[in-house]
């Protein structure tokens, strides 16, 4: 069974600084998808970034980028130029591409990020 581990329960960063959130996962599959979701105090789950395992290039979305290390099964999220609005819980999630009609997400336990003014 696949598992997702986020070893940092809480992190703090100064506004405008860069922060990296860690995520590791365990799977025997070679093709899959990885996601980072953001959950602000409003509790809504918002997709931040997505990575396809068969693509070597790291995904980037504006200030958000990932460092995907397939051999190490590591998928970290880097937030550049942190803003107060980035304060949220961040969840790493795994999806098996062979899930077919299921496509269920397996979530980590989350990292609570606080951006300090």
């Amino acid at each position, binding site marked *: 069974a696949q598992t997702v581990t986020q070893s940092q329960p809480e992190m703090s960063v100064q506004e405008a600084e860069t922060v990296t959130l860690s995520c590791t996962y365990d799977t025997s599959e070679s093709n899959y*998808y990885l*996601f980072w*979701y953001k959950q602000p105090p*409003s*509790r*809504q*789950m*918002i*997709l931040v970034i*997505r990575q*396809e395992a068969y693509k070597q290039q790291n995904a980037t979305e504006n200030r958000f980028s990932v460092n995907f290390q397939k051999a190490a099964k590591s998928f970290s999220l880097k937030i550049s130029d942190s803003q107060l609005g980035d304060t949220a819980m961040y*969840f790493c999630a795994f*999806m098996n*591409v062979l*899930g*077919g*009609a*299921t*496509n*269920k*997400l*397996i*979530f*980590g*336990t*989350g990292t609570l990020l606080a951006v300090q003014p």
Partner: protein
Amino acid sequence: EPEVTQTPSHQVTQMGQEVILRCVPISNHLYFYWYRQILGQKVEFLVSFYNNEISEKSEIFDDQFSVERPDGSNFTLKIRSTKLEDSAMYFCASSTEGRRGYTFGSGTRLTVV
């Protein structure tokens, strides 16, 4: 931008009562999901629904739970006889193709007293 709409945002119910949580997925989406998040814990998969039937359900999704797509727009989660441990945030999500990531609703906070 299209949204997944969930109602109500907060529901309080007595133990043993039936509740129905409602969701309106994005109109051209084909895959529908329910997840739950017990306060302070991780988000857990409950059930996925495609082509008018359940495609997968978790161990949490026992006989007390059911899902339905009664018309072309709504997607509901029913809990037949609520327990205290059903208190959680319930998220509905939908997607055109799950591997591109879902759109989640803003959740229904269910409190069982």
